[in-house]
């Protein structure tokens, strides 16, 4: 099958200089220029650290993006995800031609419109109608195109009553609605969208996502979508790119990408041990996840039981405390919480001493995917003694049981028996 490639990025890299622009910059500029007129390579391209925000680097130059290669097919909705500072925004800026890459090239097979922000160029003094024209033109529409769609745009925005009022009088919600309405009627071949959906009320977000899906499905248009909202990414995208420290970690179907993203998110693993001192009276020493063969791992097959083992240390006698485990899925939604008190355990007073808690999570509960575990010990509504977040995660792997419908919706996959009776 022949692929219909509409966008091709080859070896894109982007270097940034850290620190401030000052007299030092002038000398670097001069040095660069001096190399250039002698036909030599830019001396500062050879150096530069990988983009890791948290570590102290060796040099003043940093690679925000390095060796990015990918292709996008026509009609595809590609999600770009990664932690803060992974290079998502830089990549979007390069793709939307706001800034140029330091090396590499991107080829486009169609018209591009980018939506890094809604309402770019809105002028508060001008009316809603005037701003539709201005904003539309900034996004690359012609006056004729806008005129032919203006009624639809106004209708979509739901701001008809205020359309001839200066937008500075609008509520922020109306402002965003109007701005998004203009963007929604863009008809480029490739649409590049940043986290603009984070604005507006729930109803409007739903409308916006629906509109974007429609753009891709019916119009055959390509969408590149960047977001931290995993639920939106999952519902919208077909394929994804995972960025880490300015490099592509993985390009895959969106479910795999989201799982990988979650594993990446925080240095989580199957086991956690206390490393720092705490002054709490009740705290965890160690927590680990083990599979049905008692092996410490966080790769769990969807059809097997697994166990969460918690080592608790009490320095004093504490009454009414409990321990709970919350399972948070890739979209940041708590799927369920299990607690020590759930199953008739009298835990009224914890005497001074060390304890081990073992929770067995039965099979066929969680849908395949990644889950972050939040484990806490507390006295309900009174005191939080200890909490372990983003340290332990599990990955439920689909081992063929539900393979026939991988994209089944819902948070749980209970295994119920169905009666299948033939009546006639």
């Amino acid at each position: 099958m022949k692929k219909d490639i509409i966008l091709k990025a080859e070896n894109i890299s982007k270097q940034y200089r850290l620190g401030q622009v000052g007299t030092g910059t002038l000398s670097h500029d001069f040095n660069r220029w001096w190399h250039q007129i002698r036909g030599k390579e830019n001396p500062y391209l050879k150096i530069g650290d990988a983009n890791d925000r948290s570590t102290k680097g060796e040099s003043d130059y940093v690679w925000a993006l390095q060796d990015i290669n990918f292709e996008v097919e026509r009609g595809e909705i590609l999600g770009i995800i990664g932690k803060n500072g992974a290079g998502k925004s830089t990549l979007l800026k390069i793709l939307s031609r706001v800034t140029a890459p330091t090396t590499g090239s991107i080829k486009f097979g169609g018209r591009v419109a980018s939506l890094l922000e809604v309402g770019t160029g809105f002028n508060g003094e001008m009316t809603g109608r005037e701003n539709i024209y201005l904003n539309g033109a900034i996004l690359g529409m012609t006056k004729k195109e806008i005129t032919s769609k203006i009624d639809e745009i106004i209708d979509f925005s739901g701001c008809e009553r205020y359309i001839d009022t200066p937008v500075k009088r609008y509520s922020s919600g109306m402002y965003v609605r109007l701005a998004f309405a203009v963007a929604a009627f863009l008809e480029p071949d490739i649409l590049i969208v940043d986290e603009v959906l984070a604005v507006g009320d729930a109803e409007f977000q739903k409308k916006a996502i629906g509109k974007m899906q429609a753009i891709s499905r019916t119009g055959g248009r390509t969408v590149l979508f960047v977001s931290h909202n995993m639920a939106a990414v999952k519902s919208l995208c077909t394929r994804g790119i995972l960025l880490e420290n300015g490099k592509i970690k993985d390009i895959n179907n969106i479910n795999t990408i989201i799982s990988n993203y979650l594993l990446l998110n925080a240095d989580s693993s199957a086991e956690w041990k206390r490393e720092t001192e705490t002054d709490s009276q009740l705290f965890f020493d160690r927590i680990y996840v083990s599979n049905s063969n008692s092996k410490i791992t966080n790769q769990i097959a969807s059809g097997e039981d697994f166990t969460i083992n918690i080592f608790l240390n009490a320095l004093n006698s504490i009454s009414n405390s409990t321990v709970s485990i919350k399972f948070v899925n890739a979209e940041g939604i708590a799927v369920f919480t299990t607690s020590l008190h759930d199953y008739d355990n009298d835990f009224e007073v914890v005497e001074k001493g060390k304890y081990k808690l073992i929770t067995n999570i039965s099979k066929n509960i969680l849908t395949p995917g990644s889950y972050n575990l939040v484990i806490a010990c507390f006295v309900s509504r009174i005191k939080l003694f200890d909490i372990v977040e983003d340290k332990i995660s599990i990955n439920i792997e689909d081992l063929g049981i539900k393979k026939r419908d991988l994209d089944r919706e819902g948070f749980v996959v209970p295994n119920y028996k169905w009666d299948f009776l033939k009546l006639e």
Partner: protein
Amino acid sequence: MNQAEQTNITWLFEITPKNKFFSLNLKEVWQYRDLLVLFVKRDVVTVYKQTVLGPLWYLIQPLFTSITFTIIFNNLAGIDTGTVPPFLFNLAGITVWNYFTACLNGTSNTFGANAGIFGKVYFPRIIVPISIVISNLIKFGIQFLIFIAFYIFYYLKGATVGLNGSVVFFPFLIVLMGVLGLGLGMFISSLVTKYRDFSNLIGFGVQLLMYLSAVMYPMVLIKEKLPSYGWLVQYNPLAYIIETTRYMLLEVGQISIWGLGYTFLVTVIVFFVGVLIFNKTEKNFIDTV
């Protein structure tokens, strides 16, 4: 993907680290012509929104400046403007000079003032400085109307004012002024993105430049009275434009073919260099602004 497939794809455009050495991107500018019109409209219209006097503000500024100049330079300092009424003499110079400074001030801040838009969406960046030059041309047109009104007023009063035949070339002179302001403005706007020093320079630099541009005195006068500094004015292309303006409209002063040729040459060079640097800057300015 194999080679055979690759050849099937026709790419519409490509993003690369560098622009071509010199390119005006006229094709792209033409695609975005509606945006250009809307920018011009925005610049002209929003200035007088929520004001009582509205577009009258365009007229008040040159009028009062001319009155001040007439009082100080003609009545107090005694600069001789020949048979031409000093007020008209000053008004002509100020109107043209204002067009230049408006273009220069507007365009020299292109990247700074539009960083918000430029950082979010792509369109040919040169649209912005061009729209500034055009919207200022409209403002100039309005201001020129007041000049015409006073011209007729003085004419009816019997002052010796007369158009020179060369006035048909006046539009070219204005275009020259606009292009010079555009070129210089683009040049400075590119430097300002990285080194803010230039925005300080432009603030008072323009004011000082006015005194070297024969706005409130005839060019001959400076050669007569300050022969050792006269060359400063003589090598200033702006002085020739303003002197020629007065020659065309009021038949005062002198026209110098050498001077105009020199001005034309400087304008072309400044414009060329301006576009060159602007092109180089527009790709990456958002990282340094």
